[in-house]
């Protein structure tokens, strides 16, 4: 019994070490690289430090800040739109049974199953025709394609375990429709809103292919910039941009983590 306990403890430690190696080590490498003028084998840390990359990023002619602004704008439009569409759709899927429900669920998952390149090409052709290519509006709409399945499924998971009785009670106590939504429904599903919003933001924020194709190279977001820098091969620039790319996501996770309860995570079980 004791031996077995010791072996599971050992296994747990090993798993933790592995996870931190895979997840944290690259981040540390990026952090060091972003400030390293020269860093050669066999030195464990850089020999010379510099703020050169950051000076460039913060300079008035910086393309990085502009790309970050674009990314924020698009994710900032996509997230509330996805919530606004995903909430009622997820509510309908989670609460009610109706003819063709399975089909709707399947269709919703399609963008996640079909290869992204195929989806993007198809979208690009049509968006060009409609004049939505090459601007941030078109890119935002395109981002909704991979984002919406996630938000809808999260909300349908939340509403699957939701009882209408609280709303009935509120109505019986004299609450009008908007008041029921504002004072009862929204607070009750707040964890779901946080999770769905987080997903929507992160999916939009890290979108490369759709932005590239629909934006026609005119909408420059952080991932677009990051990919071209990566091709350029300047470690200092790559690392600094990668940190800027990761930081908001991590920050968002930390903030929302506090808002989350176990209820929200149960909704994720359906994904």
């Amino acid at each position, binding site marked *: 019994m004791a031996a077995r306990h010791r072996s599971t403890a050992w296994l747990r430690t090993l798993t933790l070490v592995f996870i931190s190696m895979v997840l944290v080590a690259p981040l540390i490498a990026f952090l060091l690289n972003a400030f390293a003028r020269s860093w050669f084998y066999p030195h464990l840390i850089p020999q010379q430090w510099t703020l050169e990359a950051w000076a460039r990023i913060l300079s008035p002619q910086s393309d990085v800040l502009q790309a970050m602004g674009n990314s924020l704008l698009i994710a900032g439009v996509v997230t509330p739109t996805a919530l606004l569409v995903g909430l009622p759709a997820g509510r309908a899927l989670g609460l009610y049974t109706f003819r063709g429900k399975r089909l709707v669920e399947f269709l919703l998952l399609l963008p996640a199953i079909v290869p992204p390149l195929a989806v993007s090409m198809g979208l690009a052709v049509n968006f060009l025709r409609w004049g939505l290519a090459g601007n941030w509006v078109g890119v935002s709409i395109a981002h909704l394609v991979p984002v919406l399945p996630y938000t809808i499924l999260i909300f349908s998971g939340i509403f699957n375990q939701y009882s209408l*009785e*609280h709303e*009935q*009670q*509120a*109505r*019986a*106590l*004299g*609450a*009008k429709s908007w*008041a029921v939504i504002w*004072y*009862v429904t929204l*607070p*009750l599903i*707040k964890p779901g809103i946080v999770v769905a919003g987080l997903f929507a933001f992160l999916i939009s924020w890290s979108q490369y292919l759709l932005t590239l194709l629909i934006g026609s190279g005119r909408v420059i977001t952080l991932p677009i910039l990051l990919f071209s820098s990566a091709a350029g091969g300047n470690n200092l620039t790559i690392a600094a941009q990668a940190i800027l790319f990761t930081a908001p996501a991590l920050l968002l996770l930390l903030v929302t983590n506090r808002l989350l309860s176990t209820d929200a995570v149960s909704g994720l079980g359906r994904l």
Partner: protein
Amino acid sequence: MTLVELNQISKRYHGEQTPALDQLSLTIPSGTIVAILGMSGSGKTTLLKIIAGLIEPSAGDVCFDGISVKHLPTEQRGAIMVFQNHLLFPHMTVEQNIGFGLKMRGVSRSIIEERVATMLALIQLPALGKRKPAQLSGGQQQRVALARALIVEPRLLLLDEPLSNLDANLRDEMRELILRVQRHFGITTLVVTHDQQDAVLLADHIALMSSGRLQQFGTPDALFYRPADEQVARFFGGVNFLSGEIDQQSIRTSIGTFCAPMNGASGRAVLTIRPEQIQFCEQSNGTNTVTGIVEHCQFMGIYYRHTVRTTNDTRLIVHSNTPVVAGTTGDIYLPPEHIWLVRSEA
């Protein structure tokens, strides 16, 4: 103060063979507490939801003070239902929960605060206003739910199994509270319960339901001592039933002929008598008396329960304050004034 009339209410759920409610009519006097009593599946909660306006009846009409409310949505009926699982809003404090109805009516904050404080005092939880529902016990949550409903001064208060989630002493407290606030506000109150004791202790009138039909409506003692049929009698703890033939002013059964008030009975009937009304007697004068042997004597806490075997292996249950040891042979007396005849079901 609202008089509630239910007129030929029927409810058939989609795809169900038997109706949940079958042409049920009932008048609930203004300002009284009426218990809707029945086993689970008897349609009592369905009835409550129809009155509240949460379910639409398939047929029939609901009237408050003589005016049909059938087409009024729940928020305009002024009938507030307090659910068994209390349904407090988990993200609001106790004060916010109680004040919710007033806030929805646009009442000013200072008045809400004042009224909420009064309510908290009434439900005897004055210090818990700032807590969240999850930090309260089941009984406290139930009381908050009651206060939340009462604060809007509804025309009608509908309580769905208000006592069933509580343990014994909390039940007594909650029952007291319901009675106190009902008297305080004079609100017509309907209580759904499956527990005949709760119904007897709470209600001015009891409506006993069985498979979607009203079986009997009357005061608790009427249902107790003058049941409409054998089923009602059994629900209220009736155990002695003897079927027989009416013969003038008496009924002839397999164990003897008994004098009883006839109440218009004729032909075949069933004699019933409560076990505490039967007496062991020292010497018999013959009438309404049967000879039997005590098979079993069990102490029940306040009384002794005896199983007495009489002629033809017919058994009667007799309660008494003093024990009669098993094996004793003797006479038992069925006082005519305590015998009640119900119609024969066969």
